């Protein structure tokens, strides 16, 4: 489901020890998949792939062959190349946008949780306003004004992620600010900057990084949804979402054109969720895992 409504999940587990071991195996499979996808996406321009936007009207929806390993799409473009370049587009937006949220949201959350008072009220209040807009609708509306391009898309999805990161950082800071090591630093006369950067940040960054991976998953989904509607990554550039959208018209004759990018998207989102959720459980300050 496309949304930026990321919530901290409180899972009650009946058999924690068994669950942990099981997640361990899945965790490594998921990480392996992410490494493969990331490598392919980064190396896409130097891999011996065909040009993903070269059309061949004589070879439309061609079947698997030695020339086109995964066949061609509705405009005769090489499916394998489009899949890999699509991963490049989806991952670019998916990784950079949450970094914006992580940096800005994390900083605001840290400051709000440490200084409290009016500043906190103001920050939390403005985030509530941002949250009043259903994220997908907000993203669509702003894209309409800004125009379709990868940097614009990244910027919008990044801004949308700020409230969620702010909440995580603030919650973590609130818990940590009461711990002995912070109180001790204050008693020793450490400056605010020193406490924030040396004592709090290294501890808040861990839950934030775990949350970052979940943010990547959500961003990839939203980017996919926008591109699917033709309002995300501008054509003819490939993105998994736009490939699914294009493949939808030929579901009856060549369902693989929709299902191949769909599988790629699903597995990647699932992998980010799995890795992120495992790390979140490990770094949750409330469980004293730090």
């Amino acid at each position: 489901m496309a949304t930026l409504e990321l919530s901290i999940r409180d899972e009650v587990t009946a058999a924690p020890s068994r669950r942990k071991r099981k997640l361990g195996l899945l965790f490594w499979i998921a990480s392996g998949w992410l490494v493969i996808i990331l490598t392919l996406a980064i190396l896409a321009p130097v891999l011996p792939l065909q040009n993903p936007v070269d059309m061949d009207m004589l070879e439309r929806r061609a079947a698997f062959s030695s020339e086109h390993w995964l066949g061609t799409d509705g405009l005769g473009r090489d499916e394998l190349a489009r899949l890999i370049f699509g991963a490049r587009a989806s991952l670019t937006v998916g990784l950079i946008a949450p970094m914006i949220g992580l940096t800005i949201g994390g900083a605001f959350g840290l400051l709000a949780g440490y200084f409290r008072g009016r500043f906190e009220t103001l920050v939390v209040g403005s985030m509530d306003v941002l949250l009043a807009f259903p994220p997908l609708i907000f993203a669509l509306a702003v894209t309409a004004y800004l125009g379709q391009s990868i940097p614009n898309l990244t910027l919008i999805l990044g801004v949308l992620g700020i409230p969620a990161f702010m909440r995580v950082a603030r919650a973590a800071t609130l818990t940590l600010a009461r711990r002995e090591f912070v109180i001790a630093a204050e008693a020793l006369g450490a400056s605010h900057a020193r406490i924030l950067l040396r004592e709090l940040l290294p501890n808040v960054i861990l839950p934030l990084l775990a949350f970052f991976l979940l943010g990547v998953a959500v961003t990839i989904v939203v980017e996919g949804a926008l591109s699917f509607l033709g309002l995300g990554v501008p054509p003819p550039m490939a993105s998994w979402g736009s490939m699914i959208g294009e493949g939808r018209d030929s579901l009856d004759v060549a369902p693989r054109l929709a299902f191949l990018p769909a599988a790629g998207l699903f597995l990647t989102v699932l992998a980010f969720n799995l890795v992120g959720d495992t790390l979140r459980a490990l770094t949750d300050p409330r469980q004293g895992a730090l």
Partner: protein
Amino acid sequence: MLNFVVRRLLAMLPVLLAVSLLTFLIASLLPGDLALVILGDQATPENVAALRRDMGLDQPLWWRYLSWLGHVLQGDLGRSFRTGQTVLQAVAERIPVSLQLMLMAEFIGLLIGVPVAIACAARAGGAFDRFMTGSAFAMLSMPSFLVAILLIYLFAVELHWLPATGYVPFTEQPLANLRFFVLPALTLALAEWPGIMRVLRSDMIATLQEDYIALAKAKGLKPSRILFVHALKPSSLTLVTVTGINIGRLLGGTLIVESIFALPGIGRLLVAAIYTRDLVILQGVVLLVACGFVIVNFIVDMLYAVLDPRIRHGHA
């Protein structure tokens, strides 16, 4: 109780005001000249300047916001320069479709999520619980447009059981209307139930550890009564919250689902407005949706109070 309602209502006002300001700023500050968009690329600079004067675009920003807000408060959200329809007309026409879709989706989502959650909580850690928890996790990674494609492929393309796209009003052909709504509603519901199930499950597991559940067992009540009355009722508070949060997700979801299944709802209106660069409709719909979202959250809060006697009597 009345005191509580008034307090919450007052807290809502600044949020609504900020929402209106943000909506206005998005439309006004971002690059792109509205007059130029309306007149198209062939417009002469004189024509553009004239239209800008007509629309008040040459006024200072704060003045434009206040006059826009004044109109909005009088129910005047503007008029589409493509169709001539007012925003309110356009929205009123399409709201029944979106509401029907959201209600059906939430209903199916609850129909799947609640029984699964109860069954999982009753035997937490068992085979069924682990299977469903895993499935729910996987489903959370499944975007709705992906689910839609799968459902269309299965039920429309392969099995020919249901239509992939189309719409007739319920008042004209109720059965055909429902057939058109099955796949879109199911698409949204399949994305909804994992969230419902996960929250209710962990809440039920926590509730089942409570002393009063032990006492209910010691009272010799039937297991079904313990599960559905003693455990589900306190846990249903969370369910209401989740349902409320889901409205926002559902609104985003309807956008995609209405586009895929060609249902003439609010989401489709919005997407169409973007395709045709109908900025007045876009601004008006975004404002209405955001305000509606804030109000729905307020109603969820109220419902929470009705359900929990402790809040109702001001003890919590």
